């Protein structure tokens, strides 16, 4: 059972990894234009957390949100299409890599303003209190976002009104090019939540099972009227903040150490000797992604004549 789960998780993580790596290639070839933030190394978080969200729940992520959108079920082709400026993209190319949404899949959007999505999740939970849906909402943001006033306001707001919001902080130890320990005196971010009266845990964010069980527990409490919770996921990105960031601020040793604990490596080792063909998992993921990218590249570009539509109702 555990192995089955891990196998499925590895497959889900490979889909994300392959998607992101394909974006690297598309960026290099000039087909993907603009600033792109990859989640390579952080795949365990969406894969672990999203299975605990059900229809009607609402997820809010950041510019580093491709993995979250995919884990919520956004089709790969429509996501590629979005990032490639195609009419078939989830937002017809208007959102792009850093600011798309796919509400049909419960993905209420990325956000390119650090910390701004946290209060949207609070609002989604508030809506749920009144529309009978019993919805919970999840807000995902980084360690650096914890220093943005808006995030503190959102957390206190949810706490004051017992709103069912799961605040998920992906702590990859960097905000852009700056390490967390230069920016805070106390790097135990859960304490900030606790101080607001919000139950909080800091866990290994590279273990999808651990992420899942932690989210599951808090989600159940939230659905029972227990209010918000805060989960800090210790993780790492294996690539730059954006494509093109050469990470001069990180040592080779640090990157190598990160490579040993990153979720795909860990899951792959864990499955060694189990009889699971992890190479085949990777292969299937890459094949799916290649095909999706291929289709998206064949899709028509967004039509400039529509550029003014949908500004107002």
């Amino acid at each position, binding site marked *: 059972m555990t192995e089955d789960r891990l196998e499925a998780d590895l497959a889900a993580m490979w889909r994300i990894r392959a998607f992101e790596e394909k974006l690297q290639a598309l960026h290099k070839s000039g087909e993907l234009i603009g600033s792109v933030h990859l989640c390579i190394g952080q795949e365990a978080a969406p894969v672990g957390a999203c299975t605990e969200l059900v229809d009607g729940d*609402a997820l*809010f992520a950041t510019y580093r949100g491709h993995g979250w959108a995919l884990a919520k079920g956004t089709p790969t082709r429509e996501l590629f299409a979005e990032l490639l400026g195609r009419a078939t993209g989830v*937002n*017809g190319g*208007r*959102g792009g890599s850093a*600011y*798309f*949404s796919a*509400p*049909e899949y419960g993905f*209420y*959007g990325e*956000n390119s*303003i650090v910390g*701004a999505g*946290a*209060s*949207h*999740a*609070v*609002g*989604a*939970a*508030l*809506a*749920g*209190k*009144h*529309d009978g849906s019993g*919805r919970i*909402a999840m807000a995902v943001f980084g360690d650096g976002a914890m220093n943005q*006033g*808006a995030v503190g*306001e*959102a957390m*206190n*707001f949810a706490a*004051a*009104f017992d709103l069912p919001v799961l605040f998920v902080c992906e702590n990859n130890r960097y905000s852009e090019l700056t390490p967390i320990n230069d920016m805070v005196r106390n790097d135990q971010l859960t304490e900030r939540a606790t101080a607001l009266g919000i139950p909080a845990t800091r866990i290994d964010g590279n273990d999808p099972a651990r992420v899942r069980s932690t989210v599951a527990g808090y989600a159940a409490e939230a659905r029972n009227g227990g209010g918000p919770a805060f989960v800090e996921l210790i993780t790492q990105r294996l690539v730059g903040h954006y494509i093109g960031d050469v990470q001069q601020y990180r040592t080779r040793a640090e990157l190598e150490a990160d490579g040993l604990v990153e979720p795909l490596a860990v899951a792959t080792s864990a499955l060694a000797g189990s009889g699971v063909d992890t190479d085949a998992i990777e292969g299937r993921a890459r094949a799916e992604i290649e095909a999706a990218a291929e289709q998206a590249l064949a899709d028509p570009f967004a039509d400039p004549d529509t550029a003014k*539509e*949908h*500004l*107002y*109702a």
Partner: protein
Amino acid sequence: MPELTYAGAVNAALRRCLEELPETLLYGEDVAKPGGVHGVTRKLWKDFGDRVFDTPISESAILGSAVGAAMLGRRPIVEIMWADFFLVALDQLVNQAANVRYVSGGRLAAPLTVRTQQGNSPGACAQHSQNLEALFTHIPGLRVVVPSTPQNAYDSMLSAVHCDDPVVVFDNRTLYFGEKQEVDTSAAPAPIGGSTVRRTGSAATVVTWGAITHRVLEAADRLAADGIEVTVLETPWLNPFDHDAVHASVARTGGRLAVVHEANVTGGFGGEVVVRALEAGVLSARPVRIGAADGRIPAAPALAAELLPGTDRIETELRTLARD
């Protein structure tokens, strides 16, 4: 028809929205149990339970949660107690609410209404005196209205709440407890937009909005006493703005146009009104913009009065315009 103050009219409109639209919520600092620091939302909390609630002093969370709730099908009405306070959280309107519909290609919407009030009242400090509507009229995706009478306030609120896009409603606190007026509270909500001719005359068209409308009408009365009749066109809706009505009126008044607002002149929305008239080719005389001097607003009433457009100054400038 009930006789209502401006505050009473807003209250009645909010009550009607809460009654008729179950998806509305009303919240903000001190709006529920205390009934609002200006008493505008009195008693609504009693009748609508937890759909009306007080919030922490967290403008970003207030506006941001409204955006989120609106995306998920609610129709939140939230209060920013003073327009000046928008500035701690403007992101949530400009970078967030304004983008929701467009960027999602219409898959999402942000039908929220923000109530606020603005302007100077005697003794108010520089941080509680600004007229900031022009910051919002420059932002595509937001709707903006600045009412001036009880009826106007009632109608605007109804239209704003029914609008499927984000609307900012700017009151002026000096109007809240002015004279009561009969207010028709029975009409169906009108679509947003439109303007009202407050008086007619052929000497010039004076476009105005918000509390200062009353000073403009006073000035117009004084001119009328001297036989100079101007048209006063009140344009509470700044987005969408009734440029057509302005241009038609200017054409009827010898191509003469004045715009009066309490905000400072440079970069004020009055400039946009003037340029659009110019672009439409309806101006024959040099137009006049009347607004606050470009400066900060001092607390001492005598100093503030020097900078803000008063009835005397409006009268003098309109007289010159009508004469030229």
